[in-house]
């Protein structure tokens, strides 16, 4: 038992080493970081980097954070609004059953950089460059395959007789979706919603391509401390730690839902 505990601690330390070093550096003085980059165990803690984040004249941390929150929440909501009925239609009515899921998986398998230039041009024409809505829309597109796949698997597990019974007793499709399918899909919706939020929050590529000033998310903003004069590791670490807090908290709260939803259907019963 003790041996197992030691192994767990060692593995946890190895896996979380980047996060732990960032956390510790965010509380170390700049001079300590420069003089001993790996001196994690003996240092005078300081909050100066956290203060600098909010006092910086050109780094608008609050704006980047709000942009990321809108990107994450908006992108997730849009993906669920589109993906939920799409998955239901694919599974229950067979619309695009043989093509849609295949196309979605192929598109999602491509590296996103392939879409960077055409998306940029489209957004430019549509006036969506450097807008929060445009970024949320991009997050929706990125997350849509995941949402559709997870929810389609979930609907396949739900007996179709429930829909049929509702239909026999007078419910139309909209009523079935709103009053029956959504309540029965709470776990799946929470799981896929949280995964989508985390994906959207961490989105960097399109954050760089599609924003310039007003809609910069925190994933891009955190890199502004890497300049040609060097990297302010302390402030960068503080920014990174504050920016990972929302998705980390969500993940801790919801990991049970995610595990349960992703293994739905693995075992008949």
């Amino acid at each position: 038992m003790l041996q197992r505990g030691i192994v767990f601690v060692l593995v946890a330390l190895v896996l979380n080493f980047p996060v732990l070093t960032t956390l510790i550096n965010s509380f170390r003085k700049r001079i300590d970081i420069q003089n001993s980059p790996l001196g994690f165990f003996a240092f005078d803690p300081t909050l100066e980097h956290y203060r600098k984040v909010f006092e910086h004249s050109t780094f608008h941390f609050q704006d980047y954070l709000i942009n990321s929150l809108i990107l994450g929440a908006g992108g997730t909501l849009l993906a669920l609004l589109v993906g939920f009925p799409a998955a239901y239609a694919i599974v229950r009515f067979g619309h695009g059953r043989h093509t849609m899921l295949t196309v979605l998986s192929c598109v999602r398998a491509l590296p996103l950089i392939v879409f960077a230039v055409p998306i940029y041009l489209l957004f430019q024409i549509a006036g969506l460059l450097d807008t929060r809505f445009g970024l949320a829309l991009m997050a929706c597109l990125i997350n849509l395959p995941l949402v559709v796949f997870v929810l389609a698997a979930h609907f396949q597990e739900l007996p179709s007789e429930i829909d049929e019974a509702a239909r026999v007793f007078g419910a139309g499709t909209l009523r079935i979706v709103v009053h029956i399918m959504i309540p029965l899909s709470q776990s799946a919706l929470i799981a896929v919603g949280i995964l989508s939020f985390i994906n959207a929050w961490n989105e960097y590529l399109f954050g760089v391509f599609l924003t310039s000033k007003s809609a910069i998310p925190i994933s891009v903003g955190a890199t502004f401390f890497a300049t040609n004069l060097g990297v302010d590791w302390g402030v960068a670490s503080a920014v990174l730690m504050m920016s990972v807090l929302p998705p980390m908290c969500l993940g801790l709260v919801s990991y049970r839902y995610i595990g349960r939803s992703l293994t739905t259907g693995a075992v008949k019963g």
Partner: protein
Amino acid sequence: MSELTLQNIGKSFGEHVILKDINLHSQRGEFIVFVGPSGCGKSTLLRLICGLETVTHGQIHIAGKDVTHMAPAQRQLAMVFQSYALFPHLSVRDNMGYGLRCAHFDEHVIGHKVDQIASMLQMTHLLHRKPKDLSGGQRQRVAIGRAMAVEPSLFLFDEPLSNLDAGLRHTMRFEIAKLHRELGKTTVYVTHDQIEAMGLADRIVVLNQGRIEQMGSPMALYQSPANVFVASFLGSPNINLLQGGWQPNGAHGQLILKDGSQWHTPLINTSGTATLGIRSEGLRICNLGQGLFDARVILVERLGSHAHVYLDGPGHHRWVARSEVHEAPSLGDVVGATVHPKDMLWFDDQQNLCSTGQ
């Protein structure tokens, strides 16, 4: 006026024909049972009546109205599913009131109706529970209550008892029969269990490979099955069947078995071959040499009220006879087996009934 009419109903999935030329006229309040082996199309036929599938050709009329192309909710019917299909997130009360809520009834009307039905089904104390907190029989009652609440013209049951254990199945069969007597609604019931069919039906429709083999009252089908399939399907244990060559012999006939033995038969309308059918209750154990044939006892099933005696007869053909428990022979005994001519069913070379002993 017929409550349910099916005219030339056919259903195909692509080139695969599931049902062909189904015709049926039911009377109001009749309890009709569709019975047949798995894959015969009985559940598909029920789903066509319900509107969950569309017909390939033909018409369906319910209460005088052509409902062939109507949605299920417009057909004035209610269905009880094999798996109950209760809504897991709703309470028993909300499940039972679901149809009325979809029809936009007032909440106090829904509440009153649900209370009334719950009282009839002895479920008042369960109204606040969720389906997952109920036993199989209780869930079945909720499904029936949900169907009753909408006061349909037609009740449909799709193998509602197949998920229950034997004892509960017997109890629920009684409850369904009792409800039918009290409500007097036309009911279409699908089952693969011929005992359920015999026990519940005013009329049985035997389906096989998408066709109606025979329809009629349970006893009419039992005593005068139209063909070997119906004779084999109804009755437990299965009817004893013996096939052989047949030839006329004056005013009678002769059934020639594989081992060369010949049995005396009435004159029947067949050529070449004939099949003799004898139900287990018609085959009686008697003294050696005094019956139709002699046979060795290979198995005795003592079932409490009676016994089934399995015999290895002429040509190693297996027979089943019914006996009183206290009169049943022992394993290995060699006994005689006799049958009254009135208990013989004769089938022609096309396996259709051509003579009974009646």
